[in-house]
């Protein structure tokens, strides 16, 4: 049992308020979360049920032209130039009159992520902390996703599939830490999808992965999957080979290379596969790999709940495939959130940071606020969990 009320709210109030700042990749998110102070949290294991209220959840995405990724320097510039505007907007939307009096804690993403954008955001967090005399909490981005997912879905102790542009991990909680059961050996799933979108030169708005999902839906030959190198190694998976393979197919398709027997009929030279088919096959292949390792992790920890978090977690096809697997297991359940909470956002950082704050964990010196590109999920001591 843990006492989530270890630290009392500011000014003898009966609630806590946290401001969360996220900027580890191309999304800049600012959110405000409110937790009521409840006696049931004094001696329990209810960190998934804080009765959290999202007072504001503002996000602005740095979008690049089709065929281009986001560079650290330009992404950091976007965050630097929008951060103050978004903080003002989030505070106004949350109805906070005086941040110095109203906010208990400022939470920021300490890592993992891209160094330069992380740095832009932490400078804003430090400035607000000094300006308002409010303590800081540095949050692991992955833990932010997990705690937000648990709070929204009320999944008590799920196996977590964390799938995003920079991360692909299967995680389960044990002994005060979120343990990584399996992960990518090379690129993340979102990165694989984004890079294929760049090859196809499809728009980056609203997101490359979403546009691939839409193309895959309209694939005309769903019954004939294009064979790709399905690569699961124990609990881990590899996606760089699949990307190289599908990239080469797409290039042959654009060039009209009739020697390619996968794409064109041997006798007639007629095109057998469309861009939509490639998107469909890529998704099916990648998601099947994810489902396989998630199922194995569920068997290991004897769990029947899966929580999908991260930007790729919004993909409806992934949710369907995971639901199918869970249906085949006894009373299995899939938990997922919509794009307000799945895609990187400020409230998830506020949620995880506030849990840590309520357990007494705050930054004591600014040297502890140095951001880091490498910060593994299992490095975090989850004091708020039993």
């Amino acid at each position, binding site marked *: 049992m843990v006492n989530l009320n270890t630290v009392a709210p500011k000014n003898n109030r009966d609630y806590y308020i946290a401001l969360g700042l996220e900027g580890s990749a191309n999304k800049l998110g600012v959110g405000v979360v409110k937790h009521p102070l409840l006696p049931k949290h004094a001696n329990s294991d209810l960190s998934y049920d804080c009765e959290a209220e999202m007072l504001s959840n503002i996000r602005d995405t*740095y979008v*690049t*032209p089709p*065929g*281009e990724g986001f*560079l650290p*320097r*330009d992404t950091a*510039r*976007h965050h*630097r*130039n*929008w951060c103050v*505007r978004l903080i003002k907007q989030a505070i106004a939307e949350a109805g906070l009159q005086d941040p110095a009096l109203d906010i208990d804690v400022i939470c920021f993403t300490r890592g993992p992520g891209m160094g330069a954008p992380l740095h832009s955001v932490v400078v804003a967090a430090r400035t607000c902390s000094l300006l308002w005399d409010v303590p800081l909490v540095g949050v692991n981005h992955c833990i932010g996703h997990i705690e937000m997912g648990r709070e929204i879905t009320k999944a008590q102790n799920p196996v977590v599939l964390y799938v995003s542009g920079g991360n692909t991990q299967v995680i389960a909680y044990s002994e005060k830490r979120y343990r990584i059961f399996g992960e990518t050996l090379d690129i993340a799933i979102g990165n694989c999808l984004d890079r294929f979108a760049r090859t196809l030169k499809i728009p980056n708005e609203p997101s490359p992965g979403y546009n691939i999902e839409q193309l895959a839906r309209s694939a005309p030959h769903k019954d004939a999957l294009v064979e790709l190198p399905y690569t699961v190694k124990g609990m881990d998976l590899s996606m760089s080979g699949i990307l190289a393979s599908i990239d080469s197919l797409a290039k042959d398709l654009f060039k009209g290379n009739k020697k390619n027997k996968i794409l064109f009929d041997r006798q007639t030279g007629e095109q057998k596969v469309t861009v939509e088919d490639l998107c469909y096959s890529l998704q099916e292949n990648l998601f099947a790999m994810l489902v396989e390792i998630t199922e194995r992790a569920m068997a290991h920890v004897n769990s029947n709940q899966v929580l999908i978090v991260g930007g790729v977690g919004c993909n409806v096809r992934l949710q369907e495939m995971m639901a199918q697997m869970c249906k085949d297991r006894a009373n299995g359940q899939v938990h997922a959130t919509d794009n307000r909470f799945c895609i990187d956002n400020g409230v998830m950082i506020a949620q995880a940071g506030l849990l840590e704050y309520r357990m007494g964990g705050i930054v004591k010196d600014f040297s502890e606020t140095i951001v880091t590109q490498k910060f593994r999920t299992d490095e975090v001591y989850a004091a708020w969990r039993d």
Partner: protein
Amino acid sequence: MALPMAEYSAPDGVNKSFVPIPDDPRYLTTEGRTTGPSDHVLNAGQIDRDKPSEPKRVQGGTQMTYLGQLRTQLTGLQDDINEFLTERMELAKNKKKKADADEKRIQEEINQLLDGGDAEEEAD
């Protein structure tokens, strides 16, 4: 109003102070010369919608507020620092290039001498 300033010192003895000049146009804008989008994204067709906001002015007037003024001065100061550091990096790069070329030349001379030695030994 006190001006912001920055100090640079390096182990090789280079020291420099950066102070904005209040009326210089360089220190009266929030759009820095070195803090815009990179050429790579502009060449790819990016439309810059991430410009910094204009400095805030006193209501109904043209005079900047204290924070607005501070932002413009810091923008100019950042440009000065960026230009100075870029110059330093170029110098270091050129020095390294020269050192690498010297090392290569010396190594070639040594190799030539050694080859010559081998040839003499073989002749004996």
